[in-house]
């Protein structure tokens, strides 16, 4: 008995391979997107940690200084006076190769004499000693590369490597190539350029300073002794603390990507559900027969579960493969965003570990089983007789629809409450998920209502066939409902993401218009697109101020400020009453803020205030070169430049607190009548040899928006993937549905419907489904957008965005829905129309 039962069910998917295939694709794509995002995120993080590790080596502690670094004399005192021998100075920097494709190399300026205690893995037993190696100390710009990096760059000892450092063209002379004996150590040398600390100071133009001092302190007593020796402005930290606080910067970014990737999974779940429900409906007759023959409910449920699991497992396995491939594609986007917004990370290769794969696998299987639950119960409950036809199932379906809608509404309400009241970002996402699924559950009911309303109109204005199409949508609701819901979700996501990005853009463009007022901006090139923390060569500000046509030069000094949590951007600037209107206040009264700012206070950005729950009147600790200072907060301004948070203080106060008079950028106001673009050229002509970035107001704004768009590139990719999953779903559902109705269509043909009319019928039906999906997606998508903008964005990034209602997004979404549905109807229509009525009727 049992073997026959198994055979009978096994034959089913084998006879309809495309149907099983589409379910597999659904699972695979969902799993792939989740895994890909995970792997891409983790690869970027691990690349960063590896580079940190190669930088920190065995150090137990690290000394870090103020913005310009630690004065090198301090290291000498540490060695000669405090006698801290287990210490090594280090300078970090970046170079970009000029050969294509460009690679970002981390310059590690080391003191070879101090190194062995810290980075023995960079040692190369067996590397022949040559006089060339002595050049590392005596020769300018001489470097040592790891064997892998050297091979990738195609250089050998004796070669010269052309690079750009902070925009300046420069050369590196390769004097040796290291081949560490352990592969783990080799990874530490990936994209690392080792050079003597003297060369590093020269290359990076940082005479007099080092970035940090590594320490190897075994006992608390030693740590206390070093601590006591530290002057104000030099602090002791641990390498793990430092790396952690840096990687934590991307936490929000990663969570949001993960959440978006889960969305693809949810859409995938609908697909599985759809396929399985469909196969149950199709097989009711068979299942009924089996039940008549004595197969128990439990056995039928088992059959369904096995079939579903096979699809789930195959889909998951395919998804893993796809995910790894997709991760490689997404890695570039993830890395670019991290580089644009957070910190420099050089990563070109994905690192596949078990965790994301396992996670994807579990998720894929769980999703498959959840999606299987209802169809399985449905199959098991098939009564043991053969007479129950599909029509009776549809009737049953019609009874369920209102209940489903009620459940859905409840889900939406619960989702909304959880989202608003939830204590963390995950609750907000869970709320969003509830909202989405709830909306999906309401969709069949909405479809019925809409179709019933539409039917008389359709019949009167578009004739019989239109009326038939409308009715068919209702009568096949068991299959159309899920397909419409899946498409609806995809379209709603498109609307939501579209509205969010649009709101973001509108807000940022407004903000840029308000805050970017100077006509021309001058800065030194830096590795981060939106952070300008490379000091300008001295004298640049003074020379520019003397140029004809200059009305005023506003100076800025940007630095990354370490705090007890993640680092924040600190901007020291000159503020005159003319600049007051360039600030938009989230909290505080300008009449009070500015006097306080001039006196002793700072102002902070909204994301910083929201993330650390700070308000006007609170204090903020600045770790300055002259010691920690508790400073009052005078105002909180809107800022969309960085989610890390911004602290602003007057330039003069910065200079005295941090003992640093460097300037990182200039805002130049030109006299009336002077053309900013011509002035840009004039400035470039004055400093032909310097790698200065000179940009007009318009081009700076354009660049800022460009960076913003780049940030959303990955969001758009994920949204597209979700749409593709949904499209596959609707294609699967429609194809199955139409092909199943082959006999019915044959009958219609026999009754005189010509192929053109058949086309018309099928395409009307599918476009109606698309239209319903699009229509429902409008309120749902808008609700999701509001959730993204006002809840999720605010919690994750701390931004207040203006909601920008852009009609074209809805129009686009509606068109997408209908086009997707029509496209999905073409294949079945083509197949059915080709078949002669006689053949169609002979089916079964």
């Amino acid at each position, binding site marked *: 008995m049992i073997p026959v039962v198994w055979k009978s069910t096994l034959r089913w998917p084998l006879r309809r391979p495309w149907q099983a295939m589409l379910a597999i694709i659904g699972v695979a794509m969902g799993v792939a997107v989740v895994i890909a995002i995970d792997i891409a995120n983790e690869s970027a993080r691990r690349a960063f940690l590896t580079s940190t590790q190669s930088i920190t080596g065995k150090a137990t502690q690290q000394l870090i200084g103020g913005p310009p670094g630690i004065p090198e004399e301090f290291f000498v005192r540490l060695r*000669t006076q405090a006698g801290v021998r287990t210490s090594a100075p280090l300078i970090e920097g970046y170079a970009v190769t000029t050969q294509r494709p460009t690679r970002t190399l981390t310059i590690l300026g080391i003191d*070879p004499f101090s190194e062995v205690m810290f980075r023995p893995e960079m*040692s190369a037993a067996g*590397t022949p*000693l040559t006089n060339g190696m002595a050049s590392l100390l005596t020769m300018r710009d001489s470097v040592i590369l790891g064997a892998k990096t050297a091979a990738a760059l195609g250089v050998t000892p004796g070669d010269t490597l052309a690079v750009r450092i902070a925009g300046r063209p420069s050369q590196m002379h390769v004097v040796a190539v290291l081949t560490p004996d352990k592969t783990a150590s080799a990874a530490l040398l990936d994209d690392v350029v080792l050079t003597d600390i*003297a060369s590093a*100071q*020269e290359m990076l133009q940082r005479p*007099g300073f080092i970035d940090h001092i590594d320490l190897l302190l075994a006992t608390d007593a030693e740590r206390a002794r070093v601590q006591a020796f530290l002057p104000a402005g030099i602090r002791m930290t641990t390498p793990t603390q430092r790396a952690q606080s840096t990687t934590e910067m991307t936490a929000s970014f990663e969570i949001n990507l993960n959440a978006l990737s889960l969305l693809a999974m949810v859409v995938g779940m609908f697909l599985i559900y759809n396929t399985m429900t469909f196969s149950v409906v199709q097989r009711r007759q068979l299942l009924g027969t089996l039940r008549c023959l004595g197969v128990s409910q439990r056995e039928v449920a088992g059959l369904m579960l096995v079939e579903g699991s096979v699809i789930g497992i195959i889909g998951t396995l395919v998804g893993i493969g796809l995910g790894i491939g997709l991760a490689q594609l997404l890695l570039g986007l993830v890395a670019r965003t991290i580089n644009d917004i957070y910190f420099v990370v050089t990563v070109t290769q994905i690192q596949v570990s078990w965790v994301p794969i396992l996670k994807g696998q579990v998720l894929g299987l769980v999703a498959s089983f959840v999606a299987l639950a209802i169809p399985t119960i449905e199959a098991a409950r098939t009564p043991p007789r053969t007479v129950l036809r599909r029509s009776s199932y549809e009737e049953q379906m019609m009874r369920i629809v209102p209940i489903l809608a009620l459940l859905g509404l409840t889900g939406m309400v619960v989702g909304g409450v959880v989202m608003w009241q939830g204590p963390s970002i995950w609750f907000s996402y869970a709320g969003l998920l509830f909202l989405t699924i709830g909306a999906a559950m309401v969709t069949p009911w909405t479809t019925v209502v809409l179709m019933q309303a539409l039917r008389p109109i359709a019949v009167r204005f578009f004739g019989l066939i239109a009326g038939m199409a409308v009715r068919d949508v209702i009568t096949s609701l068991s299959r159309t409902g899920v397909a419409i819901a899946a498409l609806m979700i995809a379209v709603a996501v498109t609307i939501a993401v579209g509205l969010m990005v649009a709101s973001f853009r509108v807000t940022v463009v407004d903000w840029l218009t308000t805050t970017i007022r100077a006509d021309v901006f001058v800065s030194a090139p830096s590795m981060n697109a939106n952070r300008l923390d490379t000091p300008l060569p001295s004298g640049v500000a003074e020379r520019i101020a003397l140029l004809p046509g200059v009305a005023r030069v506003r100076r800025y000094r940007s630095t990354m400020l370490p705090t007890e949590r993640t680092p924040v951007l600190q901007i020291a600037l000159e503020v005159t009453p003319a600049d007051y209107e360039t600030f938009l206040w989230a909290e505080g009264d300008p009449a009070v803020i500015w006097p306080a700012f001039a006196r002793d206070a700072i102002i902070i950005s909204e994301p910083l205030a929201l993330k650390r729950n700070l308000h006007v009147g609170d204090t903020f600790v600045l770790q300055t070169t002259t010691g920690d200072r508790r400073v009052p907060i005078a105002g909180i301004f809107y800022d969309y430049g960085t989610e890390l948070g911004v602290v602003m203080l007057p330039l003069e106060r910065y200079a005295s607190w941090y003992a640093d008079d460097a300037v990182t950028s200039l805002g130049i106001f030109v006299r009336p009548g002077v053309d900013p673009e011509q002035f840009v050229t004039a400035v470039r002509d004055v400093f032909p040899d310097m790698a200065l970035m000179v940009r007009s107001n318009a081009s700076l704004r354009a660049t800022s928006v460009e960076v913003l768009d780049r940030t959303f590139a990955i969001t758009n990719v994920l949204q597209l993937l979700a749409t593709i999953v949904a499209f596959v779903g609707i294609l699967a559902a429609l194809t199955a549905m139409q092909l199943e109705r082959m006999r019915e269509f044959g009958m219609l043909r026999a009754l005189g419907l010509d192929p053109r009319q058949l086309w018309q019928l099928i395409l009307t039906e599918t476009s109606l489904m698309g239209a319903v999906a699009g229509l429902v997606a409008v309120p749902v998508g808008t609700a999701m957008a509001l959730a993204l903008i006002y809840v999720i964005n605010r919690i994750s990034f701390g931004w207040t965005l203006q909601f920008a209602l852009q009609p074209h997004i809805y129009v686009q979404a509606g068109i997408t829905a209908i086009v997707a549905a029509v496209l999905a109807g073409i294949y079945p229509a083509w197949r059915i129309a080709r078949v002669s009525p006689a053949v169609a009727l002979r089916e079964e």
Partner: protein
Amino acid sequence: MHTRHPHTTLVGFLGILWCSVAVALTGCSSAPAVDVATGARVSVAAGMARVDTTGYLRAEEVRPFVFPRDHGPHPDYAVEWWYYTGNLADASRNEYGYQFTVFRTGLPRSGVPHSGSKWRTDAVYMAHLAVTDVSKQRFVAHERFDRGALGLAGAQAEPFRVWLDDWVVASPDATGSQMHITAKEGDITLDITLDATGPVVLQGDRGLSQKSAQPGNASYYYSIPRMATTGTIRLGDTAVAVTGTSWMDREWSTSALGPDQVGWDWFALHLNDGSDIMLYRLRNRDGMVDAYSGGTVRASTGIVTRLHANDISWTPQGTWLSPHTQARYPAAWQITIKPLSLTLTVTPSIADQELPVTVRYWEGAVRVSALQNERPIDGNGYLEMTGYADVP
């Protein structure tokens, strides 16, 4: 001549090349955990021929020595060292020995000399610190490298000061006749004051120590053989007050070890009759004593006798097998200085005084029993034996 010229090449230049230049590659740390011996063997053979001394002067003719100026550095020469060894005793007559040595090595000067960084330098410093506790049979040694830049390591004449981080030898005043050594690492500390009790002895021909027949293959070499020493020495937890006698050796040059020379033995001995003896024995690959070996004896009367290879007969007594490197060193020495009818028996105070540093060598406190015209004289001093751990 070049008592330790080979030494220079070996320890100084190669050690530095080895460590600093190859990014402290196989481990030139003071931690003896690395297979330094193997590295050393490779480096001695490989590095010797590559010494690039372009841009440095050579010791070609006799020059006047002026003090304290010449206590300071001579950066025009590629190699230079300040060498302090001494035999000390505490109130309970427990014996101690110490060695404190600073080497300066000039890197090839073919690179770009001027720079935007104060870290840029062509001078690399290396130092060895060793303490012997005879009664407890303990010997501890450490090694340091540093660049001669920014004040991390360096040397100056007036006031005299030579240092690597917090290892310092310095004069409290401009005369340079008193010197103070402070050095601490791990569980040893040296904190001693040295007072010259006799004049400077110019070695070789008025301070020009010829190495081979070729002019310029020589060094400038002087010693202060007898320096009264007081201070404290710590080995482990307890610091003890000590007194005794130290020997200072100074040498600078720009030349390398001959291709046939594989090592040398150097003696700096104080006899209780007040005489000071410096002897060096260069060993050639064929096992013969090199003709440029020699030495100096300064009698208590102040009369200095220069010795040539023919004046001395050397007889190694037995062998000591190093448990660290498996090298075999002479266990003791019998030496006859023919012109003075002086026979010396030199025995290490403890057998194992092999330094666990980049290039291994044996250097340690010794006891001397001498016989001159059948009159016994006791003494002590320092012995250095190199090249034993290198020879294949």
